[in-house]
Structures are given as C-alpha cells and as structure tokens.
C-alpha cells in the first residue's frame, strides 16, 4: 500500500522499516496519530498499550475513536480502526498498564524503538527506566495546548527523562486542608479527599475531619471541646467517615450537618486557630444562602456559572445519592475512583468545595474552573498532537537509519519566537547528566529525613513516591542486611520501626533496587532534625554542559533540589499557583529555565 514511498526512502530505510518492531505506549491523542503514521509509513509490526477506556472528551482529537466507542478499550479500538484502513499490518493491542511484571526488560528488548505517547509522569519515568535497562531508543512526546515537544532518549547518548529535575508537585500541609483553608484549591483538595473517604479508596493521609494535632492549635481548648463534643454527638469523631456515612445511609442532610455544621463548630472550638484568622461560619441545611434567589441569568456555558450555596447543597444531595447507588451496585469491598469526566464525581467535588469555601469566606468557583483545578486539566487539541506525532515518526525513521545524532530535541512553540522559529531545535543531542540518579553508571541520591522519626513504612513510600520505584528492595550497604523487601510480608514486622531503631544513622547508605525496572540506586541517609517527613537531595543542578541554545543559562538555582514528596518545598518564592496534588496521572506544567519548556503531557486522562 505504500507504493510510491518505497521510491522515496532509500533501500536501507525501507529494509529497516520492513524488519522493525515498534512499541507505542499510550493510545490517546498522540498515540492515535503515531499509530496512523506508522501504519501508513509501512511499519509492519506494532504493539500498542493503554489501560484507559474511551471518554467523550477524547473525541475532539483522538480520531480513531467515534461516539459509539465510548467506554471501550483505547488500545483495542485504535488497533481495529487502524486495521480497517490497512489490514496488512500486524498490530497487537494491550488493554493494560505498562507498569506491570508482564512488560519486563525482556519484553522491551524485542523492540527496535519505543514511542511514548503518555499523559503522566509516573508512567513516563517507568518506561524511561525500562528503555534504559533494555537499551532501546525511546522517542518521548508531549503537548500542552498549542505547544509540544519530541525528544530522543538513548542510554549513554542522551539525557534520560529523569536527568533534569522536574518541578515539584505542590502539596499542601494536612492542617491547611483540614483546619484552615484559605484558597479555593484547599477546599477542592479537601473535597476530593472527602470523595475518597466516602466512596473511594480510603487513605488515612486523606482525613477530612478537624485535625486536633495541628501545632497551631496546641494547648488549645480543643481537647476540652472534644470531650464536650463527644457527649453531644455520640462520639462521631472516633469512627471513620465511611463507616459513619454508611450507617446513616448516606443521608445527604445528615452528612451535610456533620461536615458543614458539626465539624465546623468543632474547628471553632480550637480558638487558637482563629486569633488572627476570620473564623468559619457553620451552615444549617434548612437555611442556605441563595435559597430564594430566582434562577440566575448567565451567558456562556452553563458550566461557567457559579452556583449559589443553596444550589451546591442540592447538587451535593443529588450526587451523594447517585454515588451511593453506584457504590452499592458494586461487589462488597470495591470502591469508586474519582474521575473528573464522571458527572456525579465532578458534581460532588464542585458542590463540597464551594460549600466549604463559603464557610471559610473563600471565593466560590464555577464547575468549569473547579474541573480544571481538581482534574489538573491541560488543554489538548488535535493539531498539536498531529504535529508532534508527525515529528515523532520522522524521528523513528532517523533512528532506524542509524542517524541518532540528527534526533535532537524539538520544541513546538505557541507562537514564532524572536528568531523566527516556530520549532526550536536543540543544536546537538544533550549529553546524559553524570549525576543523574537514574541513568548514571552508579546512580546515587541522598534522602534527608529525621532518622528518629521516619519509619520503614515511610521509607518504603519515599522510595516509591520520590524515586518512582514500583517494588523496592533495600539492603544496608556493606552489611547486606535487608531492611525492605518486595516479597509480601517479608519485612512487614519492621514497618513501624524507625530507621534509627533498625540501626541506621546519618551517612549510612542503602542499596535500593527495583527488580522490574532493573534499576539500582545507592541512597545515602542524611539526618535533618527539622525534616518532618523526607526530601530527596539530588545533585541534578550541579553545572551541566553549557546550554547550546542562546537563552541565558541562569537555570542553576542552588544545589539542592526538592523532589516531589510530602514535605512542602522550602523555596516557595514563585507566586504562580500550581494546582497540584499527590495524584496519579498528574503532571505539573512549569517551564524550567532551559530545557523541557513544555514538559507537560498530552492530557491528564489516566487518573
């Protein structure tokens, strides 16, 4: 079918394509385009993997899917659609997560090229490591609105995906979320936590009730208030929110009264909190602002009108009922997963966030805006995806011809820059960072924490969250003592012991490895009394080869780079608010100084 092209491509390329095998990770906006381009270029063997199903909001750009496909597997439908146009290609579709033992290093080794068309950092990090371990060239792609980029990652030759620090994902202190919200985002995070408490996967770190351990409230009347409260309300504080809600049959009025009445009264009793803050105002179900208002007129989309508190309460009631019915219809022990594109989930979070905002005197937002913030939505359009996918497949051709040196990173700009460039290329490949804690020959990183407080369980999540490992094993260097094992149950008995109790001290090193990722890193422990949780200290910002672009190289901002983690970044001078929460499928769009200007995703679809 690719008749004429055979004459345009030289023999070497034609042959290389005929013998190639390509893996496409992600069948979203860019993935669909890449698949089409590969098929029409004559690539005979393609595998495509995506765990997602098709949503209505995909249809504005993911052209292999039509309305009748909503709810079906992206990978499968993409394959079927592509084959209907060219049945001679061998396409294998996996409706699965790429982060799985089924796709180990040997799986990756069978491909000549891996093409990333992903929408989240966790999966990108993982595929990056798999390709480094398998030594397969990886073409990494991404778009955000009118912008986009394509880059090659090849072990030993180029930077890997993790060679440069990414902007940390912002998280908020628990007590701000639970006790003293001051911005809309605090209420939105709280509402998402509440969703999980009531309907989703329960996570003790996502408690939504008043936090009595708030240091600011210390020595407060709160504890005495607690006992008074207990007798009044029948000790509701002791139960998990889910249990309590189930017992009350998810009765909206009762839930409302507890969440937006009783709990707020309780917060008010923690008087220290309100000495220099405006105290919150508890709400009563029967008497909500906006009750008697006539329906507001609004031009534009209905979603962009801000609801009154009364309307929020109505939406709250309706969505609670709908979500409860959904939960009840599932097998026991199953839970809902929050999805910004699911009506009731999004209604619930909008309503709860706004009711709470009203209570704390914080401006209310429209459902449209809250969806952006809660879902961390990055705009996505067909044209940018088409451009990036076209570039990506042309890069794949270069790679097959052995012209790796030509595959420098390219950035698509929203508008032509002062040098007349719509596409800004790096002049040469960017060499690997010798200090990278992923692709350096002997990767190393420091973990700052308080050894007296950090438990092994917390260490485990630090390795998973901070170093993006899937199943870490850790042993003490020089002693061979295994402190963490990925075998279920093997080291569980140590879970609550602190690192100090296990015999680890300042300067100690752990050899941590992840079997699936075939990745080993030496983690030096660094005692910091003030550190409440943990923080990675990397040397990624130490001087790098001089930038090849003519932009000022003022990117180096100190040596210690805070990595995503539960402790709040210390340097918070940048006033651009980032709407980020610890969430799978979340990516911060924050241009670092030099590279990865649009290091965002195609879209955030996975969560």
């Amino acid at each position: 079918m690719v008749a004429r092209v055979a004459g345009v491509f030289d023999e070497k390329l034609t042959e290389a394509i005929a013998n190639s095998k390509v893996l496409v990770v992600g069948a979203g906006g860019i993935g669909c385009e890449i698949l089409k381009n590969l098929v029409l270029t004559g690539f005979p063997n393609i595998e495509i993997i995506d765990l997602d199903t098709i949503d209505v909001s995909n249809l504005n750009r993911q052209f292999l899917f039509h309305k009748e496909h909503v709810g079906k597997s992206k990978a499968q439908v993409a394959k079927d659609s592509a084959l209907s146009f060219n049945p001679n290609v061998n396409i294998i579709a996996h409706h699965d997560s790429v982060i799985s033992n089924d796709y180990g290093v040997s799986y990756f080794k069978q491909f000549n090229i891996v093409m990333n068309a992903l929408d989240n950092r966790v999966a990108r990090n993982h595929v990056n490591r798999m390709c480094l371990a398998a030594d397969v060239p990886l073409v990494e792609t991404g778009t955000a609105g009118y912008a986009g980029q394509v880059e090659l990652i090849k072990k030993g030759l180029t930077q890997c995906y993790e060679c440069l620090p990414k902007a940390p994902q912002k998280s908020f202190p628990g007590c701000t979320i639970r006790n003293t919200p001051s911005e809309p985002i605090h209420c939105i995070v709280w509402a998402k936590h509440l969703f999980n408490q009531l309907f989703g996967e329960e996570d003790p770190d996502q408690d939504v009730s008043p936090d009595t351990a708030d240091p600011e409230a210390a020595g407060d009347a709160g504890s005495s208030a607690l006992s008074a409260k207990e007798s009044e309300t029948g000790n509701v504080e002791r139960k998990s929110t889910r249990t309590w809600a189930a017992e009350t049959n998810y009765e909206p009025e009762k839930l409302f009264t507890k969440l937006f009445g009783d709990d707020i009264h309780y917060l008010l009793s923690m008087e220290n909190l309100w000495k220099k803050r405006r105290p919150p105002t508890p709400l009563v179900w029967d008497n909500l602002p906006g009750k008697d208002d006539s329906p507001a007129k609004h031009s534009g989309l209905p979603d962009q009108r801000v609801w009154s508190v009364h309307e929020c309460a109505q939406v709250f009631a309706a969505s609670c009922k709908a979500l409860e019915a959904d939960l009840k219809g599932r097998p026991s022990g199953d839970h809902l997963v929050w999805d910004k594109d699911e009506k009731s989930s999004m209604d619930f979070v909008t309503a709860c966030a706004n009711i709470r905002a009203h209570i704390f005197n914080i401006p209310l937002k429209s459902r449209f805006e809250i969806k952006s913030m809660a879902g961390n939505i990055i705009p996505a359009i067909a044209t940018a995806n088409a451009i990036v996918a076209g570039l990506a497949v042309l890069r794949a051709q270069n790679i097959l011809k052995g012209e790796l040196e030509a595959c420098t990173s390219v950035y698509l700009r929203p508008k032509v820059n002062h040098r007349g460039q719509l596409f800004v290329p790096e002049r040469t490949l960017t060499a690997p960072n010798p200090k990278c804690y992923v692709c350096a020959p002997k990767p190393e990183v420091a973990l700052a924490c308080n050894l007296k407080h950090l438990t092994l369980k917390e260490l485990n999540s630090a390795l998973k969250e901070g170093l993006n490992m899937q199943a870490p094993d850790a042993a003490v260097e020089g002693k061979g003592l295994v402190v963490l094992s990925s075998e279920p149950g093997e080291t569980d008995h140590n879970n609550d012991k602190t690192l100090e109790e296990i015999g680890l001290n300042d300067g100690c090193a752990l050899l941590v490895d992840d079997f699936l990722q075939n990745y080993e890193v030496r983690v030096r422990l660094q005692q910091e009394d003030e550190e409440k949780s943990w923080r990675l200290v990397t040397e990624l910002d130490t001087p790098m080869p001089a930038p090849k672009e003519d932009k000022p190289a003022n990117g180096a901002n100190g040596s210690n780079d805070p990595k995503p983690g539960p402790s709040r970044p210390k340097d918070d001078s940048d006033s651009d608010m980032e709407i980020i929460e610890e969430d799978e499928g979340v990516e911060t769009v924050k241009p670092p100084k030099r590279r990865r200007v649009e290091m965002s995703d195609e879209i955030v679809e996975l969560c």
Partner: protein
Amino acid sequence: MASLSPKSPEQNEKSKQYDRQLRLWGDHGQTALENGHICLINATALGTEVLKSIVLPGIGAITIVDENNVSDEDIGSNFFLETTSKGLNRGSETLRLLLELNDAVQGHSVQEPPDQILQENPDFFKSFSVVIGTSLNEKLIKDLSQYLWDLNKPFILCRSVGFLGSFRIQFREHSIIETHPENEKVDLRLDVPFTGLSDYFDSIVISTLELKDHGHIPWIVILYKAVQKWQTTNLNRWPMSRKEKNEIKDIIQQFIRSDENGVPINEENFEEAIRAVNTALLPTFLPVKVQDLIYSSAAINLTKESNPFWIMCSALRAFVEAEGKGNLPLRGVLPDMTASTEHYVKLQNIYRNQASVDAEIVYRKVQQIVSQLQCDSISETEVKLFCRHAHDLHLIIGSNIALEYQTGSPVASYIARHLEEPDVMMVHYILLRAADMFKSEHCRAPGEWEPESDIAKLKNCVSKILSDVSCSPFPKDDHIHEMCRYGGAEIHSVSAFVGGCVAHEAIKLITKQYNPVNNTFIYDGASTNSATFTF
C-alpha cells in the same frame, strides 16, 4: 427536603466533547470555529490531514474541490481512503470518511477543476472563511492567490513533496484581539484611581482594623495606602525608582502588626503587597502599539466596508481622548489574592463595574459610528471582549503571494539575500516553487514518470526562478536530483506534520486568537529542520 430535585446544571454533550479545547480558546472561540467554513482544493494526504484536525474540533463546514479520481498512490498515503475508493472521486471519498469523525460538521464536495471555477464562477469562493490549496501548479497559484487577495479572503498555500513541506499564509491584514500574551500585565490604576476605587480605598483605615480583618484586606489596598503615606513626604509624586519602591516596601513592613512579644505576625496579604511593589506600581499608560493602531489611517478614515476591528479602534480612540483621559478602558480583572470573600468580591465588583462602564461608553461610540456608516452592527459582547484586551491588540499586515513572482520586488531581493547566506531552507523553497512551475509546464510532478530526463527540465525551472530573483545558479544539482527522486510522492508523516501545522494556523486565523505564523514556513523532514520567512 422533598422538594429537592437533582438539578445539577448538566453539561451538554457538546461541551463535554470539546472540553479540552474550550479551555484553550473559550466558548466564543468555539463559536467562531463553528461559524467557519473551510474550502480545501485537492484532497491529497496533506489536504486531508489538514481537514482532519479541523473537523475534529468542530469547524462549521468544509468544502472539498477535487476533480481527481483515487489512485493506488492516494490510498497508500492517505488514511481517509479505502481500497474500495479506487477510481472514485477523491474529494467525495475523503469527505465521506472525514465526516465520520464529527457529525456536527457539514461537508460538500465539488468535482470541477479549480481553474474552471475561478474563470466561470469566482463568486464560489466568497462564502469561505479560509481557502486552503495544495498540489497546485504555478499558474493556478498565481491566479488564485491574486483573486483571493482582491477578495480579501485568507488563503493558505501548502505543499508536501517527499521530505519537503511548506505553507504560506496570505491575508491583507489580520487583527487579533486575544493574543494570549504569556504575561498579561495587571491594570489596577493605583496611580489614577477612578471614583469608585478611591472611595473604597478611603473607606478603609488599616490602623484601626481588628487583627483578624487586618490579615484579610487585599494587598492592593495596602499598597495604595503605603503610597499615600509615602506621598505626604514626597510632594505627591509617584514612586518610580528602585530606591523609592524600597521605601514603599519599608512602609508596608511598618504596617505589619506584632504580637504581644513584639514579634511581627506573619500576614500573607502584607507579604503579597511587598511582592507586588515592583510590578503593580508601574504607572498606567497607553501602549505605543495600541496608540499606533487607533491613530492609523484605517481607524481614522472609516468607510462602510471597514471591518469591525477598525470601527472599534476608532471608538477606542474617541474614548481615550475623552472619558479615558488618555488611558484605555479598564480591563476589570483582579488577580487572585489573600483576602476575605467580602473584600475580594467588593473590590472585584468595583473593578468589574468600572470596566463595564468603560466598555459601555465604547459600545455607544461604536453604535454611533455604525449608524453613521450604515454598516453591519457589532455586538456588545464583541466590544466588551475588545475592551478587555485593548492593551494587547495586535495587527499583522500581510503580503500578496504574487509579489514572490515579481522580478525586482523587495521580496525577490529578500529571497536572494537568504540564498546568498546561504540558507538551505530558502533553497528548499526554490525547489518547491520550481516543482510548481514544472507542473504548470509539463502537467505532472518532476520525476513522476522519468526521473532521469526530468532533471534537466527541473533545472531549467530552477534557473528561471533564480534569474528572476537575480541569483546565480546553484553550484550543485543534488537538491534537483532529490526533488526528481521524490517524483511528487507524499511521505505520510511529512504530510501529517505539515497538515497539523496548517490546521493549527487556520484555527488561529478563524478564532482570531493567538498570533499566526507570518507568513511562510518551510520544513525539511530529512534533516528535520524548519524555518519561517516573512515575504
């Protein structure tokens, strides 16, 4: 509670489908797109890829002009053709499959040759918002571009041949109200507060506020008060220098309360005020770019045919000279800040109200002009949008494609300059044009039948173009050989890439948002280099 009816403002299906792009260009951008009608000449792989990326986001209608029947080569390079399409009209076949992508889009297919339409029924082109042409020969390019220039219709000429691709955007002028600047400046008028604002400032006395209110007053108020205090000892001047701004910071520092032990209380709003000193104290002024626009002859000498942009510029000038006292209408947007809802909403309303008062005045002036000229009316929404973005208005003056073919024109010497540099991307441009000329003379692409004998013929075309721009012939023939080797074939990925770019720019033109490329883009897929030129 029985009255509780679940009446969540349900999103309609359309806003769900377009959610990810509405966040980029808004519902008015979407409306503009849905009112758009694109005409494509020749449904090649490139042409079809362009339409694909415009149909998906929901263009109103597409019309494909294509007289050709589907060949094997077409099926090989075009995703929107099936093996069963062979021998059928290429335009109607691709149209059928393209429309499956989005049932909201209207489609038409016209099987007449475009040069015939141009001769017999040129009015045909009047109804489109943008005309896109691909795989055109040189004669048609010249005739069509001249006709569309006279008609004042945007035209995008695009090409995909082998590893080379290009597009050229032609319009007379393109005005952009929403440029989406990376850093939109705030418009707070602290130096020239309007009545509502100064009344509000005067109603607040920082020193007498209770502590919990103290932490909730917007930083704008704090900054204003600090400047007021500073002015008492500085002859009511406005702080401009770094030193003076530091003095303002010191004053704000003094506003911060201390606790019973004399330790300053950490109040976020005061910190925000200190951070804002450097940016928010910039005096209000009329940007030079906007001044040039409102005093340009197009805005002064209006006619019945003047487009709405110029009518609004004219009304804007009248506003600046009268009610605005030298300044633009207030933008009316308040940045996010630490403040109680009460304060925030009050302040927000003060800015919003003044902005709508200003916009109302401009709107009335627009109405006056419209009734004087007896031209089409302009909606209040349009005028409001215009006023909201008045600080960032942008105009691009385009150029006629025909100029590229004129010997001795400034464009010819521009081309020559780049060829002498030597700029290999300009060499590609020459080759693409030579291939167009070859097509006009021989009714086929160079190399399509006989690569060897076509080399000399193509070389002739190249020489002709080079002598037109007064340049010496290329020292080597390798680019000519390469072009003949392509044989006019399209590489799908190159077409997909260029197609994405053209659709990208077409959407910028139709939505009148973001600055489009001005005006030529050349791409070489072999080296993956690209360049833009302004002819």
